[in-house]
């Protein structure tokens, strides 16, 4: 059941991204899609609507980049509630540290090892 929910919810979130690309008149690149999703995820999370989606769909909500925004927002908000102003500065990136570090490390290695084709 958790696999079905992850598939349907995750797929639906990606459908929204595809609509943004196809229905906007100007050039909406993958960079625009990613920035839109991380920002929207953080805002929706701050309003309290993203956690219920995570509870429902698991990876369907955490794997799309809006889940990355949710991670940053919840980390920063929890930091601010527990440690005050400094927590707002430390909490977000701390929560997302694993993903950021993994992306930098694996990305760096991949760019060194492989050669582009075509």
């Amino acid at each position, binding site marked *: 059941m958790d696999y079905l929910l992850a598939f349907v919810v*995750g797929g639906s979130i990606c459908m929204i991204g595809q609509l943004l690309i196809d229905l906007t008149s100007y050039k909406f690149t*993958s960079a625009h899609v990613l920035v839109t999703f991380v920002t929207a995820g953080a805002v929706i999370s701050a309003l309290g609507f993203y956690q219920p989606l995570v509870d429902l769909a698991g990876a*369907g909500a955490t794997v799309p*980049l809006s889940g990355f925004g949710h991670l*940053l927002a919840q980390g920063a908000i929890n930091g601010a509630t527990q440690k005050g102003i400094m927590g707002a500065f430390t909490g977000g990136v701390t929560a997302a540290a694993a993903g950021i570090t993994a992306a930098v490390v694996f990305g760096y290695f991949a760019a060194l*090892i492989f050669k582009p084709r075509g």
Partner: protein
Amino acid sequence: MSGAAISEKQKQDYAKIVKQFKPAQRIWRNIFWAFIVGGFICLIGQFFINIFLSQGLSTKEANSAASSTLIFIAALLTGLGVYDEISRFGGAGGIVPITGFANSMVAPAMEYRAEGLIFGVGAKLFTIAGPVLVWGIFTAWAAAILYYFFK
């Protein structure tokens, strides 16, 4: 002669009809494949989360570990040239998941490798990841500050 003229007109009419319907069809096809590919990537993510949970990790740790695993796979597939095919096929289904974020880092870094390890790989890793981190971190910080003062 007149037969040829009619077929010319038919061609134009046909082209008009094609033009009318083709974009709409393409949009539906794109949306369908974005759903399938994006959903499938999330399904794989759920598979990893369940594995890490069964290893005794907490929900947060399992989510982070699963994301890192997906990032590793995406970096590898980008290096092998496979991820470009997934993105071409799945559109936003390949862009929106965290695998698309990893792809957006590796692809330009590989491309500009010749410009060196600092301005080539080092800088180009953040061509798209830079804006994503700026917007994500800023929004999260602003939300936390608002929480702190107005909660």
